[in-house]
């Protein structure tokens, strides 16, 4: 008896002293509540008649039904239009733009970190801007260049005006523009993750190969690439999944030529209150991205994960570009400048146009900044906008810090529990929120937190619930970043600290955090940006007191005064860049330069 008591006590004590274990269990519980419950609720909803559907589903609200599944999967021509055609389009678009975004992002990361290319600071600054800019701006910028007078809104773009004849329809609308815009929108993932990982590749590994006679190409293929694979896999999945759920770009560039993707089906169902179907589409997206994750871990899992940070010196090897240095630098900086500044200039110009889209001096106005239009005050003089800006900043920073911190802890517990089922479950659960459309998540969180549940008080109407919703929604960034960063940190460093009596918090703050701060910064920036931009997730949760900037844009667009919304877009860009620069200064990393082109 005594002996078994002691055994239990010993086991408990071991458990308490192995943070990777109790952290994993805590994550399992918290994710269970914040992710699995909402998903379970959605699945439940797809089998029960939803509000407003009694007529067409033939029953009473709340009755069991197969109506939604049958409708989406087995209703002949209707299913083809709702599911199968959009599914094929989605796969085609997503895979293609992912490949393009990966090539752009990784090449850029390599040039930034591993070569002596000039203008790095400028190029690095440009690289994340397309991700910050609201995606409608990118889509409209595309139309400004390639639009033709024959389809859509019928406005001739720059190219048509110069050539004097209409650009082909496939260049103005449809898959090609959607793929191009999404690739520009999302290559920042590949760039940020790739740069963070590249910066941790110890030059001694590469040099060892070089000394043994390997060529530069062979070093990249045999040393650099395998070390980078986990990060590349993560980047590919994030990029792929980001586009799966994106509605804005396909709506602008696809709808006018009736090119539908799954997100179109999903958002159209949700927009007309058909949540039963919307949740079925959500499950299809969850399945696709889950398959992508499994495929990714199968591909990468076969190879070894490499620990690159051990308790010894590490440095960077910089490839000298020689005579190509200047031309490459100019070319890269030039291309980046175009994809970055064109949409921004476009965005800024629009905020000064009294009538949208009319580029003439007598159309210039400051009304949308400091004046008034349609009874609405310019955004710099509107107290509502000011209050929302404060909320937004608070939310962006706290969610950014929160996700980055949680990401490191997830990374820690997953990497230290590698191979155990709990690690797999935590990792996979943390990815689910990515493909759940924000509006569905918001709706279910509303129901979950509008009443007290156990120890949790009513959170609906507070900033806390918006914070939690955003945090959960950004977990995939966080865990991808954290896991790929932590996989590279050797256990020996931590063990030696532990032997010398350092507590877990001390080990995290003094060893793990400094070593992974580039990953931390990447997680911070990506989740800060998407939190500040996001409207769908928060729209059902905000109140007049907890209003955020992005949610204000709806009213302006509804009025047809997109200039106000564009001005808010400009403010968001300034906020994000400002915070990034401050974060860079505080942590002494250089995120705009791919987390340090040089040694840290």
């Amino acid at each position, binding site marked *: 008896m005594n002996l078994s008591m002691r055994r239990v006590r010993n086991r408990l004590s071991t458990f308490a002293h192995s943070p990777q274990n109790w952290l994993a269990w805590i994550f399992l519980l918290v994710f269970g509540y914040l992710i699995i*419950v909402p998903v379970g609720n959605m699945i*439940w909803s797809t089998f029960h008649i939803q509000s407003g559907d009694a007529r067409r589903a033939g029953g009473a609200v709340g009755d069991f039904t197969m109506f939604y599944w049958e409708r989406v999967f087995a209703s002949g021509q209707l299913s083809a239009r709702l599911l199968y055609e959009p599914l094929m389009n989605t796969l085609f678009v997503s895979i293609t733009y992912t490949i393009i975004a990966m090539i752009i992002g990784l090449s850029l990361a390599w040039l930034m970190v591993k070569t002596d290319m000039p203008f790095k600071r400028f190029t690095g600054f440009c690289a994340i801007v397309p991700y910050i800019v609201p995606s409608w701006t990118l889509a409209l910028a595309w139309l400004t260049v390639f639009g033709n007078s*024959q389809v859509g809104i019928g406005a*001739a773009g720059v190219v048509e005006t110069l050539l004097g004849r209409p650009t082909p329809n496939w260049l103005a609308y449809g898959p090609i523009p959607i793929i191009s815009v999404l690739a520009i929108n999302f290559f920042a993932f590949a760039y940020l993750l790739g740069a963070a990982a590249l910066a941790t590749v110890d030059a001694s590994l590469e040099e060892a190969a070089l000394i043994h006679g390997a060529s530069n190409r062979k070093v990249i293929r045999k040393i650099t690439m395998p070390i980078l694979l986990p990060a590349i896999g993560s980047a590919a999945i994030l990029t792929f999944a980001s586009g799966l759920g994106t509605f804005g770009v396909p709506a602008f560039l696809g709808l006018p030529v009736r090119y539908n993707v799954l997100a179109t089906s999903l958002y159209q169902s949700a927009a007309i209150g058909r949540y039963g179907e919307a949740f079925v589409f959500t499950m299809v997206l969850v399945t696709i991205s889950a398959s992508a994750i499994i495929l990714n871990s199968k591909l990468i899992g076969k190879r070894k994960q490499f620990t690159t940070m051990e308790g010894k010196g590490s440095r960077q090897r910089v490839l000298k570009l020689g005579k190509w240095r200047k031309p490459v630098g100019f070319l890269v900086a030039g291309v980046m400048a175009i994809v970055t500044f064109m949409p921004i200039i476009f965005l800024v110009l629009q905020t000064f146009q009294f009538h949208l889209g009319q580029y003439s001096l007598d159309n210039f106005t400051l009304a949308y900044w400091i004046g008034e239009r349609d009874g609405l005050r310019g955004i710099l003089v509107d107290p509502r906008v000011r209050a929302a800006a404060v909320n937004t900043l608070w939310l962006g920073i706290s969610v950014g810090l929160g996700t980055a911190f949680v990401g490191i802890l997830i990374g820690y517990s997953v990497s230290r529990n590698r191979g155990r089922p709990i690690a797999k479950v935590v990792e996979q659960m943390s990815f689910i929120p990515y493909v759940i459309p924000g509006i569905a998540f918001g709706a279910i969180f509303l129901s979950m937190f509008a009443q007290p549940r156990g120890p949790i008080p009513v959170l609906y109407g507070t900033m806390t619930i918006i914070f939690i919703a955003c945090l959960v929604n950004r977990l995939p960034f966080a865990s991808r970043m954290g896991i790929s960063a932590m996989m590279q940190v050797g256990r020996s460093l931590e063990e030696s600290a532990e032997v010398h009596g350092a507590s877990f918090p001390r080990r995290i703050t003094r060893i793990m955090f400094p070593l992974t701060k580039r990953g931390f910064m990447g997680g911070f920036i990506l989740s800060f940006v998407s939190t500040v931009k996001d409207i769908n997730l928060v729209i059902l949760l905000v109140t007049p007191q907890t209003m955020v900037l992005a949610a204000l844009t709806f009213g302006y667009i509804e009025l047809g005064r997109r200039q106000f919304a564009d001005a808010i877009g400009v403010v968001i860009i300034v906020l994000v860049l400002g915070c990034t620069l401050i974060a860079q200064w505080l942590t002494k990393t250089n995120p705009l330069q791919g987390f340090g082109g040089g040694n840290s």
Partner: protein
Amino acid sequence: MKITRNAAFAALVVSLLLIPALGFSAGTAEPAAADPLDEWMQFAEVGPYQPEVEDWDAIAAAAQEEPPLVMYSNTSRAFPVVDQFNEIYGTEVEMLNISTSELNERIRREYDAGIFPSGVVMTGNIAVMYDQLMVERNALTAYVPREMQAVLPDRDMEPVLIHRYSAGTWYFTSDLPDGSVPYENIWELTTERFRNRVAMQSPLRSGTTMDYMVGIVANSDLMEELYEDFFGEPIELTTPNAGFEWIRRLLENDLRVQASFRDVADAVTNSDAPFLGFGTQSVYRDVLSGQYDFELDTDINPAILSARPIAMTSYTESPNTAKLLIRYLTSQEGGDPWWGADFPVNPEVQSTGPMANLTLDSFARLWSIPIDQALDLGDEVADFWILYE
């Protein structure tokens, strides 16, 4: 030992998956038994308890003592009105501006959870609002100030007060020398002359467009007549009726489906005449201001009446503020942002500005869709659209 741990782990995962099935599901509780609603109506003096004569000074005084009220509105034009209202009455009204469908979703879920954060609701789609928020549940309560009850026709206050109307109609640019409407019959839109020359929002994204399509289907007899007038022979159907037939042929005539009303207006302005677009008449305000360039068809094609309702949230703790606000929003002063383009129901209110001459009577053929019809045919039209788009 290992087995038990794995078993415990599995048990945990399974129980986590079961949580949703147990306590938490959509619409668990039904807080609106008849009694609490009746009690609230007595407290709020609405419904059967609305006094024969309302003392507005007393209501205004009571409103000042009430907790802050939040109005949910699908239009941002209400922002300045709310500020004015607070200034006049010393109240604390705030506003949340979200789309019609988000607004429905929110009120539905709040009501099902037993919380009532809003006080007044201004929205766009009367059919869905009535069906889901007033029939399926008592989330909204109709309120019409007594003095308006005396002067309004039933249409404007049954089952809920209409704040204003707008009209879904056709925008055109003409290639005729006198600039007149470039077609004589709605079926002309399905001919080669208008191939790729008609722009419209999807009825799946726009309530007004949906109402129009429901109108087309509901008036299939008229559509059949018009077909014969135009083509000189009876219609041969490939779809259930002449209304659906028109929708199908319109789609097959390379209809330009647009993401928003503004895109429709842009397409009409940007394209060579003749070109047509469908949207609400209020955009004409921006034709007068110089943003767009087209005319409204009030004579040939039918237009659709679109009602914008206003109601009180059931169980609000600020019923006096709500009453005062509803009365203010329907007045000349409080409705000012709308009276320059939309059509007031309050007979004491005058339209203002350069569009004041355009009234509902200006439309030669104005369809109005009863709520039941909108609900019955809406789903059918939506599915039909998905099939042929």
